[in-house]
């Protein structure tokens, strides 16, 4: 996975949730500087139901070009073309990014009561499919991450469950 500084952008997504802590830290000066230092030149925020609005910017030599939106019918195009994705820990968003093969940093929302989302993020991070961070450690993660250490997420066979079910019910599979 190459570090992509001339094409693409950083895509920050919170799915259908409200995750102001992530948007706020990603929009912070420290984070912007970290992204710039890693060679990224622009960032797109998908802020969902959040209330924190990032600063739009056309970008110049020293700053990140910034844009944002709340929702879109499909995030597929944004994900497909991103050089880096910083996402909340929802399984839908995680797997969409992984299947597209884009480098991914997952940020779990520690304000959520039952943070079982961390289980999934940690497991995938352990297998080196993505990086894991909290809003407090995001800047450090961006600064120190080694994208070449990431492994491509292997395609699963979703039909396996369906086939197992069909077999149990006695349907013959063509």
């Amino acid at each position, binding site marked *: 996975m190459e570090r992509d500084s001339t094409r693409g952008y950083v895509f920050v997504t919170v799915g*259908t949730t409200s995750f102001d802590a992530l948007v706020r830290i990603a929009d912070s000066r420290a984070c912007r500087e970290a992204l710039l230092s890693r060679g990224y030149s622009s960032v797109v925020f998908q802020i969902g139901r959040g209330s924190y609005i990032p600063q739009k910017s056309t970008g110049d030599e020293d700053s990140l070009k910034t844009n944002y939106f709340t929702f879109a019918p499909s995030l597929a195009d944004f994900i497909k073309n991103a050089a880096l994705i910083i996402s909340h820990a*929802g*399984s*839908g968003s995680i*797997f969409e990014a992984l*299947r597209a093969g884009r480098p991914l940093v997952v940020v779990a929302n520690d304000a959520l009561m039952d943070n*079982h*989302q961390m*289980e*999934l993020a*940690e*497991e995938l991070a352990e297998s080196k499919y993505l990086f894991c961070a909290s809003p407090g450690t995001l800047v450090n993660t961006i600064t120190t991450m080694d994208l070449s250490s990431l492994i491509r997420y292997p395609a*699963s*066979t*979703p*039909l*396996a*469950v*369906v*086939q*197992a*079910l*069909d*077999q*149990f*019910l*006695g*349907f013959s599979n063509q």
Partner: protein
Amino acid sequence: MKMEVQWLLWTVFSILVFRFAFALWSTGRALAPCLSKRPFCTLIVLGSGGHTAEMLDLVSMLNHERYSPRCYVAALTDNMSLSKAQRLEESFIPQAAANHKARYLQIYRSREVGQSYLTSMVTTTIGMAHGLWIVFRIRPDIILCNGPGTCLPICIAGFLLKILSFKWVVMVYIESIARVRKLSLTGLLLYKLCLMDQFFVQWPKLKNKFPRAQYVDRLM
């Protein structure tokens, strides 16, 4: 008179105990081939957000002629799940959908997040009663669920239907892909109660911890 009533009650009780034992023993055994020549009326339980997305993903992969007619159940306070299901159904091949129209039902939620335990006892009873009403009315051949609290009354009702009638309801649980090392509370309960005919997990670690579960790869 009293003796006869007592005798009758004992007989009914014995039959129920026998049916209960039989249902437990038969749970998980593959269906006899003769039962699978016809389509299966499928009850699909939808929870909020991620649960709905995962379940609808699964439904889109099923053979739509075999698992038909489909009935979707979501909590009364869940605004989005049923309309998402409707959009999915509309995207299927029109002729398959026309033969068996999908249905959309709402169930009283047993307990809202943060609700006090005292009032929860009342609402849980109502939720359970409503679950019984729905399941006994629809009489599904198969119940599909993946973890929201909404599925507990439905699954218990499904199991009661097995005991109290000769309807064999296949109960299938697919734990969410987000559950890697621990089962959800609903999943744990259903696993311990041995109610499900098929209990799928999506991570090998869970299969190791819960040997009666099935692991056949992830859905995503």
